[in-house]
């Protein structure tokens, strides 16, 4: 079974400050990890993924995430937040390449204040 936890419902940061949105996961095999962003009344948009390779993954809009196997974490980060980054962020996991579904976390609302 696969599961994802996003421990924070809300993250508030000031514009220009670094941001971190936390995610931990549990899978029986090799984790395939994803971050998606959802703007109001919009579909989920892919940000970045980790399959294999470098633990630091760079994605869209200046976001990056670090895969930490020992801590089973995949936290989303950005060095300098923008007001336009305010949205709902979902972490997702798949248990290897043949899993038919992604399991999503509960989502974290990021609010970036000017």
């Amino acid at each position, binding site marked *: 079974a696969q599961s994802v936890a996003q421990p924070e419902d809300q993250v508030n940061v000031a514009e220009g400050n670094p941001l971190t949105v936390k995610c931990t996961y549990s899978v029986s095999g090799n984790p*395939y990890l*994803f971050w*998606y962003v959802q703007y109001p009344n*919009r*579909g*989920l*948009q*892919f940000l970045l*993924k980790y*399959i294999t390779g470098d633990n630091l993954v760079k994605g869209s809009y200046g976001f990056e995430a670090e895969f930490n196997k020992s801590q089973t974490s995949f936290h989303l980060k950005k060095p300098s937040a923008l007001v336009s980054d305010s949205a709902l962020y*979902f972490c997702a996991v*798949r248990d290897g*390449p043949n*899993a*038919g*579904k*992604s*399991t*999503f*976390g*509960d*989502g974290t609302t990021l609010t970036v204040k000017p």
Partner: protein
Amino acid sequence: AAGVIQSPRHLIKEKRETATLKCYPIPRHDTVYWYQQGPGQDPQFLISFYEKMQSDKGSIPDRFSAQQFSDYHSELNMSSLELGDSALYFCASSLNSGATKNIQYFGAGTRLSVL
């Protein structure tokens, strides 16, 4: 670039009615996924199809059924609608090979309201 198309965007039904949601994947994508997202909740996986065959099944109620057609579009059929079925229904598609393998691309969703 073409994206995942879902229709209709909004749908209002009454209890015990039926509804059909349609999803047109990105061209050449071979896998389609359906998710249900209730208000303030994360997306819950319902069902997926790969090459027109059901590939995985999640928390899809027995009242719902889905299929993928020869042109790879998919339809989610919902019968005996209940108030609790009111949600945003997302379709996603992916290509089971290449650099974008395992990345799901989502449509804008169909917002179903059951009155």
